[in-house]
């Protein structure tokens, strides 16, 4: 194996160039690099933000079937208040999903927890009227390919979450579901199935008391915001 000799020992030997020159070189290098990075950041940030927003939107629309508009809602002092898409918030966040007409369809709630291999991050749709989970999207996971990754690859498993009652708490069963609150586990990936259900149960349990009663959700966002305009907004910042 080729050894790369590294001596990260700046200015150890006494030598000709003055320390001023050393500091200067490093300083200039740092400065230039700072400029370059800041520049790149400025150029790419709006695109990245737009990408993220688009991805989030797609996910929200998927987990709340029929929705075409969404809005970020933060829980402040026990109330759900709409916040701008790029505003940094420290409060818990859900997404409200609305249809073309601006009617509220459901919440998209994010959750995370440990899975078989590593953290699973997911987004699920929740219908407060029916008190049901209505859709599931796995945002991030490193579950075993071919087994645990069926939590997002297996249509049959996903179908469990199309109308899944959360009361009483969801349970995982084998060999077919008999009740509204049951999820049929993936054969050979019971742990991954359990992990998903556990995340949904925990997150739902935490959110339920704080969600406003059905019908009192914050209103739909103004109809116009489309991807290009969002991009512009980001660019102005």
């Amino acid at each position, binding site marked *: 194996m080729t050894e790369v000799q590294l001596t990260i020992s700046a200015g150890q030997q006494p030598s000709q160039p003055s320390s001023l020159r050393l500091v200067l070189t490093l300083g200039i290098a740092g400065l230039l690099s700072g400029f370059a990075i800041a520049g790149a950041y400025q150029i790419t940030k709006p695109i990245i933000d737009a990408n993220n927003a688009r991805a989030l939107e797609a996910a929200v629309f998927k987990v709340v079937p029929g929705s075409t508009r969404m809005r970020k809602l933060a829980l402040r002092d026990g109330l759900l208040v709409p916040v701008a898409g790029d505003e940094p918030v420290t409060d818990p966040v859900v997404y409200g999903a609305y249809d073309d007409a601006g009617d509220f369809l459901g919440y998209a709630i994010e959750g995370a927890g440990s899975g*078989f291999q590593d953290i699973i991050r997911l987004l699920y749709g929740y219908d407060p009227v029916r008190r049901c989970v209505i859709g599931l999207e796995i945002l991030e996971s490193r579950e*075993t390919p*071919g*087994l645990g990754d069926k939590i997002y690859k297996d249509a049959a498993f996903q179908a469990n979450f199309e109308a899944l009652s959360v009361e009483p708490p969801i349970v995982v069963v*084998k060999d077919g579901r008999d009740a509204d609150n049951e999820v049929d586990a993936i*054969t*050979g990936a*019971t*742990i991954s199935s359990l992990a998903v259900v556990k995340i949904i149960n925990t997150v739902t349990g935490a959110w339920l008391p704080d969600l406003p009663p059905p019908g009192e959700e914050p209103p739909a966002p103004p109809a116009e915001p489309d991807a290009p305009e969002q991009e512009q907004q980001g660019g102005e910042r």
Partner: protein
Amino acid sequence: MTRRDPRLLLQSAPFLRRGITTPRLMVDVLIALVPVVLAAVYFFGLSAILVIVAATAGAALTEWVFGPDRRRGGSLTDGSTILTGVLLGLCLPPGIALWMAFLGGAVGVGLGKLVFGGLGQNIFNPALVGRAFLQAAFPTAITTWTQQGAITELLTIRPSNFALPFMQAPAPAADAVDAISAATPLGLMKFQNIPTGVEQLLLGNTAGSLGETCAIVIIICGVILAIRRTFDWRIPVSILGTVAVFSTIVWLFDRTEYPSPWLMLCSGGLLFGAVYMATDPVTSPITPRGAWIFGLGIGLLVVLIRIWGGLPEGVMYAILLMNAATPLIERIAQPRAFGRGRAVA
């Protein structure tokens, strides 16, 4: 001046040998496997034979082609490769595609043994390397346990055995007997909290890998091998003892949540692994003290993985991990040389 007499054969002492050779040790273990194979056939029908033969063929062919012997295939004669193949076959599920079993044998011998220089040089148990490879490669196929056939169906062969190489098994007809998948006793306990009776475990009337279900046969063969000094009895004793102690402790905390010590001891690959896999002399510590530590480590890991891990069964991983730790164990467990370390009167 005298010259060397060409008729006289020069050798170095000692001139006597005990006469028990390495191939004989291998054959001993193979013979001790015959009852296990028979039990597998009894419970799983002809599929068992097919899977074992496929795994052995994979192992043997690899050894024959890439073996270290100058005479091609010479290294097959020591019997170790055949043993590896049979052991691998016995820890596969009955319905596995034959090409997978073959591949497992080839990988086990190729990557688990030959790259290290062949017999005696390997650091991981080749059969388990093959098994772990298959488990990682085909997680679904290798965890699909099929129901045991009735004795009248001894001759039926599972169609999934005959998947084309590199292809999935065809979807079985829904009403076929062997299409009914069954969970292993450990899986039942872990995911559905259903314990399995000890009599059932002892007799082997459960789902599982070919060779691991019938506890009583494995125990008897193990005792015979231990008496014959074919393997180091300390290893299985240490493994089983550790598992018994720790699973009892855990079980006493919550008797419904955690499996009983009997279930822990008699189910899954624990007995098979303790008797036939962990005792592979090449990959286990050579010193008696090392053997105790080795078994202790395996026992602890088995309990850890089975009870708190994501997998229902962890014997294979526990043994592989302790194989990896063997050089470290041997470092701290060298024998005390004569006249050293102890005060002499």
